[in-house]
């Protein structure tokens, strides 16, 4: 826009339309595909994980029974060389398409007041087989931040692998990482390419800080841009209390993983949920104690 004004000032353009003085910013504010609100009872041992999938219709609470659909994403939404982030992009990496990825908000803001202090959170993005076989070939990938970002312009790119440059437009988001949690994962290099998972401990800080933002997209690495297409996905979110507060507590193995819950997974250099280690594509890869 400024360039157009500059061009006008230079006398290069004599447009029929009036000179645009008012600054116009397209696409202001980010719409999450859904918000998940967890209560203490949802975090107890044995409580089921939350699960949604593309095409599933869910009523908006208080909306008089009008359902909204969980959308599809794109096969290259998580990593696409065509996203062209601004100058300063980290060489050898790939940025996600913010508008084609699906964004989810995990609301844990009520839990601290309910007496919880530490959680274990597991988020899985999976291939989902829907009615159209052409859309049932997702290679899932996901990135998780701490925070809640509904303000500001939604730019075309996002740092799917936490690249530090250029500065991320999501100024209310910080990478959710720990010693055992890289905060993002792609299924591209893994077995049948059907599951990506991020899991780790989360220490609750208080209302406004206890949110996770998840970006879900495909990482198909198509050789030809024309192969990009809509894809179904399934998203699972499991939030559990980290310890009961009684004796015992967690036992950490030599790799830094939690005995009985997570195991070291050398191909991805992080602790993986035991349930995932038992999936056919990871079987035999995990070091469990």
């Amino acid at each position, binding site marked *: 826009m400024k360039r157009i004004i500059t061009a006008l000032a230079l006398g290069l353009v004599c447009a029929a339309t009036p000179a*645009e003085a008012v600054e*116009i910013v397209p696409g202001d*504010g980010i*719409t999450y595909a859904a918000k998940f609100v967890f209560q203490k009872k949802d975090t107890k041992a044995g409580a089921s994980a939350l699960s949604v999938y593309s095409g599933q219709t869910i009523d908006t609470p208080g909306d008089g029974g009008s359902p909204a659909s969980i959308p599809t994403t794109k096969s290259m939404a998580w990593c696409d060389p065509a996203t062209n982030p601004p100058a300063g992009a980290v060489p050898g990496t790939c940025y996600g398409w913010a508008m084609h990825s699906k964004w989810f908000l995990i609301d844990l803001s009520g839990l601290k007041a309910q007496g919880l202090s530490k959680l274990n959170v597991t988020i899985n993005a999976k291939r989902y087989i829907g009615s159209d076989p052409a859309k049932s070939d997702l290679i899932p990938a996901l990135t998780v931040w701490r925070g809640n970002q509904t303000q500001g312009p939604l730019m075309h790119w996002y740092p799917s692998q936490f690249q530090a440059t250029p500065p991320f437009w999501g100024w209310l988001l910080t990478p959710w990482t720990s010693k055992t949690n890289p905060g993002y994962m792609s299924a591209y290099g893994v077995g049948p390419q059907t599951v990506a998972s991020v899991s780790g401990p989360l220490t609750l800080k208080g209302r406004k800080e206890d949110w996770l933002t998840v970006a879900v997209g495909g990482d198909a690495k198509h050789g030809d841009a024309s192969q990009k297409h809509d894809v179904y996905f399934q998203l699972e979110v499991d939030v559990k209390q980290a310890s009961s507060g009684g004796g015992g507590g967690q036992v950490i193995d030599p790799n830094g993983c939690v005995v009985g819950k997570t195991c070291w997974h050398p191909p991805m250099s992080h602790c993986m949920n035991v349930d995932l280690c038992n999936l056919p594509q990871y079987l035999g890869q995990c070091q469990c104690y």
Partner: protein
Amino acid sequence: MTFRKLLTSMTAAGFAATAGNALAGDIYPSYGIQYAAKLIFDKKDTKTGAAAASLHSGQAFDTPNDDGNATMIPQTKSMAWCDPAVTPAGYEHNGCYGWGMNANWYLIDLSKLKGQGLNAVWVTVSVERYAGSDPTNNDMIPALTVYRGNQTLGPQMHWFPSELQGMPEFWGWLLQREVFVPGKADPMFSYDSAYATPAQNFASVMGKFKLKGGTQDYLTVAVGGDAKDPNTKHNVNYQLTVDVKQKQPAQ
């Protein structure tokens, strides 16, 4: 009905729960509202002779600092502003509600003006039919509603009170119906539809807007079609013009 209740009723009715699909937590689909664009006014834009802001469906704008990546102004639907199909529970029978998701939402940012020494401005917001490349999308009967405030938080529900109905309670809790100084607006209510006009191609709202200070000096505009024909709903092109002036414009 919430999803939790739905699930309970399914279980109670004896339907087998699908393996692995039991839910924890409440789910709010489509959370947070995206404006099609934000229009930021500076004092210089409000002087006599300054151009109004204008944009139309299909027009591309660069997002500042997004390295030349452009975003397109979308189309709306021919029945987005008033459609009996959206009627929420508890609605007022003498009106018609808009589709929250099919209408296009705009944010007019006047938050700088008070700090620049202005106390009130005259605001004119107009929507007109726009001729795009596909003739079947060029028959919009425009309509619009203007609220005071800025709402990016919360779930975007399916409906909105296009005629400023009081029932049911509006989900946009940061939006106010009282936009303009009473007696200084024509019409007094900040919505308009072209349906009852001969040409059916132009709708406009105008009034005097008192500046209160930073966070309160926003206008939210919902734009949609009012074709009143539920059997032929389709995409339509429009042009939106926003004029903000220190002096009252000539009628």
